[in-house]
């Protein structure tokens, strides 16, 4: 028998080598208790959470929790069905209404996860003879959507407007073209030059899809994302988003003004052939989305946190993914996986959780300690975070 798992031997070996050094497995952490959006108990220790994408801290919002409990009581634990059969309850319609209002758009379609939203929309829009032009650092769900639709994939250098334009102009003019961009790139926390990119894409006759997973709720005047902040949201054909970050639950969505948008509900396989979200989840999402419409104060505090952490880490001597804070993600670049894992463990032992990110998720083979801030992090917590980084950085030799 040819063991089909043998192809993973190099990865198994790398993992074993890493764990032999005695380091805690960074991909096997268990949260024993969660006290708030910013604090959990891990390995019996109180730990500050700085790697959860819980940007707006909605997971413990009393109104959100009350809405979920009520829906659980009134509609049960699950729908046991597809959106197009028995899986559309009033709550699913209500959360789509909330999204249409939040984005001021005509249509909204909710998927069971953010991954499925990209997978479903991209694979349904772009088929074998169509071209998807995408940033090389695009999320896995975007690449998987292209593969599922069997589309022609044309990648361009990260955030390079000239490279995008050049490649767009090499595509046969009569072919269908979809340009896929992200507002905030989740690994380095940098923002895309959407204004220029959307203009170039439209000039080439392409449709544009922007994934705003990491910007919803706090970037742009109404929290609609980078496309709103840069004044091009009306030129974007499809916006993809998620409930698993700022909204604080799970699920994905697409909003659009395209007049034929509703047909996607019948032809999009990752929408049709899966069970819809539980009633409690859509109830929490709808409540949270509506509260995010009025989150100006929280947004301001989140930006304050981001600026302070970025400035503090830079001052300590760490190498960061961006020169200035561009989002609520701050990436600390590690020299290699071994140092990254040692630093990650040192932070955890001091009571701080961040994400350890490594290839293939990261660009250019980098190892990153990725920090994501929350509007509910207090100023004291950010100060504590900086102290822990200083101690762990010196102990592991990352900084002087």
């Amino acid at each position, binding site marked *: 028998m040819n063991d089909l798992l043998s192809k993973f031997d190099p990865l198994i070996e790398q993992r074993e080598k890493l764990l032999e050094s005695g380091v805690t497995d960074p991909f096997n952490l268990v949260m024993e208790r969660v006290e708030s959006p910013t604090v959990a108990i891990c390995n019996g220790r109180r730990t500050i959470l700085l790697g959860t994408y819980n940007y707006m801290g909605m997971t413990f919002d009393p109104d959100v929790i009350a809405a979920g409990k009520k829906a659980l009581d009134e509609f049960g634990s699950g729908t046991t069905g597809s959106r197009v059969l028995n899986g559309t309850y009033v709550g699913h319609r209500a959360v789509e209404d909330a999204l249409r209002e939040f984005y001021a758009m005509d249509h909204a379609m909710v998927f069971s996860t953010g991954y499925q939203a990209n997978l479903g929309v991209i694979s349904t829009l772009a088929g074998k003879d169509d*071209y998807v032009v995408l940033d090389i650092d695009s999320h896995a769900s975007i690449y998987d959507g292209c593969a599922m639709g069997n589309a022609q*994939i*044309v990648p361009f250098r990260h955030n390079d407007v000239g490279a995008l334009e050049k490649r767009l102009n090499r595509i046969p003019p009569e072919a269908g073209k979809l340009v896929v961009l992200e507002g905030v790139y989740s690994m380095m926390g940098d923002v895309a030059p959407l204004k220029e990119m959307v203009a170039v894409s439209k000039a080439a006759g392409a449709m544009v899809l922007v994934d705003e997973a990491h910007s919803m709720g706090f970037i742009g005047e109404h929290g609609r994302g980078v496309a709103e902040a840069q004044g091009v949201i009306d030129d974007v054909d499809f916006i993809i988003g998620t409930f698993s970050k700022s909204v604080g639950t799970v699920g994905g969505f697409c909003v659009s003004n395209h007049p034929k948008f509703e047909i996607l509900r019948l032809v999009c396989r990752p929408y049709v052939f899966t069970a819809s979200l539980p009633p409690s989840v859509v109830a929490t999402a709808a409540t949270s989305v509506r509260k995010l419409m009025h989150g100006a104060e929280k947004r301001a505090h989140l930006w304050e946190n981001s600026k302070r952490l970025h400035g503090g880490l830079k001052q300590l001597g760490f190498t960061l993914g961006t020169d200035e804070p561009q989002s609520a993600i701050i990436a600390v670049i590690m020299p290699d996986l071994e140092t990254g894992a040692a630093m990650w463990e040192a932070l955890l032992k001091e009571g701080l959780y961040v994400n350890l990110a490594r290839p293939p998720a990261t660009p250019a083979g980098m190892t990153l300690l990725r920090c994501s801030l929350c509007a509910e992090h207090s100023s004291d917590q950010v100060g504590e975070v900086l102290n822990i980084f200083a101690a762990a950085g010196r102990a592991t030799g990352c900084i002087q």
Partner: protein
Amino acid sequence: MDQSDNTFARIEALIEPFNKKGVAITPETRFQQDLEWDSLTVLDFVASIEDEFDILITMNMQAEIETVGQLAGAVRELSKR
């Protein structure tokens, strides 16, 4: 393989700036195993090939191209269109 044109020589010249290990280039040279290129290097190299020959090489096509000789063949095909 048809080597009557200068396609191979032009490709060889474009490989040079990325050939950090100084590997001798033959039609059998493999981009991943022999030149040890990562995805970012491939991206920049493909862009320079596209500019030189005024063609588009999609990621789908790239997946089928393992050696320099295969690339030369693909470039000749695409240039005809």
